[in-house]
């Protein structure tokens, strides 16, 4: 490509590369993609695990965003071929796929909540909703190494393609849709590295049945052929199972919340400047340059290290490092609570509910400590380490759409929705979406019987506390 020749002045133009991969076997990257892979922002992805703390449950789940990004580039290329994209569109989706995770921070989505909470929004452009997308865009547009690989017009197109809700529907569907290249790679890759079969589906069969359909108004859409409904069912179920069994695993939920709490304690209570600097995003490239030097291991080792011993956050960082985790002591469905309390409880983690959350956690800590011999450190104020959290399991039907538009089955002039075309999905009750309220606390169990005893003892009092206080909101 001309662009590669003209956009790499002073650099040795690398050759195309073939990469061994356990999921896709051989992945071919062209010269430009190989050059992008060699940039520092991309190499940094080697230090960000794909599944955060899932390795505390599935020991081999230590794969990183580096190999995932290369895999997504490969799958995007396969999709582009199946959908008969022209060379220009193929180039766009492959590069956008390769760079889609560039803006991730240590522990990826987990610490995103902290980044959202502590970002200095007065310094960000108005309507900056997703900070990681914004950071990805800044890296693509301003990192000197990436700028040497891509022309400014291509950088602009890649950034647009990666922004939610932008670009041509069929291109967007390859990068961010219910059956996009990202999901296709992570389902297979995460299953493989976790050592589970939940996320397995027939990738090549799925690609066989995808169509690039031009509607009468000229827009192009990704659709699935009617005889591909079973391949799609397999994909949707794979995503559902992987989400429920791996991403939403009980230990994952606890570790994610521990990390978020550790960061907020470090910033707000311990006043650790290094931590505040890492999450107070001010929209500058300088911030991103500094933040890009941190990976998962560095973050954990640094804040669980001797320097911060005795701080509140140290206890949680250290717990994550050594797998001394909080325990689930309470779990009830949201609909158990009276109507007035539910909304506050459903979004209890949001910054606007922080005051209520602290109050509730204080009351819960007191209740847990009262007369319990199962507390790790009797007499110590536990309120900082009691975490109230809620999460929603979407029904498999709702999960098939994720946050994107529904999948369409190509039925001539009147395509129909996947869930209507699938006999299997028609038979599934669409109402089964549930939100649960959970409490994690630093307790020790000598036996499963201890655990049951504590949970039974806490169920009534904690429900009362939550209902009374949250219902007042």
């Amino acid at each position, binding site marked *: 490509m001309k662009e590669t020749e003209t956009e790499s002045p002073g650099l040795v133009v690398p050759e195309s590369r073939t990469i061994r991969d356990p999921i896709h076997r051989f992945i071919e990257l062209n010269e430009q993609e190989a050059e992008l892979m060699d940039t520092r922002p991309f190499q940094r992805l080697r230090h960000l695990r794909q599944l955060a703390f899932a390795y505390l449950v599935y020991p081999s789940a230590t794969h990183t965003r580096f190999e995932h990004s290369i895999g997504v580039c490969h799958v995007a290329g396969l999709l582009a071929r199946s959908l008969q994209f022209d060379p220009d569109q193929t180039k766009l989706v492959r590069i956008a796929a390769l760079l889609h995770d560039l803006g991730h921070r240590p522990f990826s989505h987990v610490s995103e909540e902290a980044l959202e909470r502590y970002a200095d929004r007065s310094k960000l452009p108005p309507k900056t909703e997703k900070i990681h997308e914004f950071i990805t865009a800044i890296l693509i547009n301003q990192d000197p190494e990436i700028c040497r690989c891509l022309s400014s017009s291509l950088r602009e197109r890649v950034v647009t393609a990666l922004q939610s*809700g932008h670009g041509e*529907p069929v291109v967007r569907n390859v990068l961010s849709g219910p059956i996009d290249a990202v999901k296709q790679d992570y389902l297979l890759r995460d299953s493989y590295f976790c050592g589970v079969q939940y996320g397995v589906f027939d990738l090549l069969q799925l690609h066989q049945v995808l169509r690039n359909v031009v*509607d*009468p*108004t000229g*827009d192009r*859409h990704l659709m699935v052929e009617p005889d591909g409904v079973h391949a799609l069912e397999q994909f949707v179920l794979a995503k559902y199972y992987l989400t429920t069994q791996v991403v939403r695993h009980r230990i994952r939920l606890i570790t994610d919340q521990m990390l978020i709490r550790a960061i907020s304690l470090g910033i707000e209570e311990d006043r650790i400047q290094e931590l505040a600097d890492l999450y107070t995003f001010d929209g500058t490239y300088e911030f991103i340059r500094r933040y890009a030097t941190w990976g998962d291991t560095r973050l954990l080792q640094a804040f669980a290290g001797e320097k911060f011993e005795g701080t509140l956050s140290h206890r949680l960082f250290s717990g994550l490092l050594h797998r001394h985790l909080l325990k689930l002591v309470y779990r009830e469905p*949201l*609909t158990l609570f*009276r*109507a*007035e309390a*539910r*909304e506050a409880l*459903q979004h209890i983690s949001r910054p606007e509910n922080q005051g209520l959350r602290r109050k509730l956690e204080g009351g819960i800590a007191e209740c847990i400590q009262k007369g319990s011999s199962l507390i790790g450190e009797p007499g110590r104020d536990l309120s900082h380490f009691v975490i109230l959290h809620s999460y*929603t399991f*979407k029904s498999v039907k*709702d999960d098939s*759409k994720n*946050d*994107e*538009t*529904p999948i*369409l089955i190509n039925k*001539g*002039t*009147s*395509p*129909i*929705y996947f*869930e*209507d*075309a699938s006999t299997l999905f*028609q038979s599934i009750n*669409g*109402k089964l*979406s*549930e*939100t649960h309220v959970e409490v994690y606390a630093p307790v020790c169990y000598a036996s499963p019987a201890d655990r049951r005893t504590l949970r039974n003892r806490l169920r009534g009092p904690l429900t009362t506390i939550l209902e009374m206080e949250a219902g007042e909101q």
Partner: protein
Amino acid sequence: MSTRDILLLAYDAFGGIICGKTKLQKKLDFISIMLGWDLGYGPHYYGPYSADVANSNQELKSLGYVSESIASAGAYYDQGFEVTRHDFLLTADARIILGAKKRRNAEAWTQIESAAARLKDAGDLSYLELSIAAKAYFLLNENGSSARTDELVKMARMFGWSVTEHDVTKAVEFLKRLGLATTAQPA
């Protein structure tokens, strides 16, 4: 005000029930157009779609404020694209919290109520007719001005979707009554 609260109030303004996922999407789309609120609508094959509205509806279900029932498949199959009809109904629990919501968002509630009344007055459209109206309007109104009826008719005929002349006429009349379409100028 969150999309979820807007949706909750819209349910009440529409009498506590919305029949069909497409109707839910399109009714909220027209409310967002009339009130100038951004509810995250973007292009979709069958007209504007908002994942934000879909997710908010899912949240209302998990809160127990909206219940869903699914009508048996088949009846619609030859007439459009919604094979299964999902009906959404406000629950008794939602009624408990609605009063406080309306008081807290009094101005927005008045706006939503009035927009819903205008939609009802403009005609009781099927999901297919609403989709025609929403997509035609979306495509012709990207620059923000009112669309001309002759352009809307031409555009709607292009969609395919097994639409009839009657569907197109109803959709355009609906837009005219809402003040979202102007009479065609003579060539």
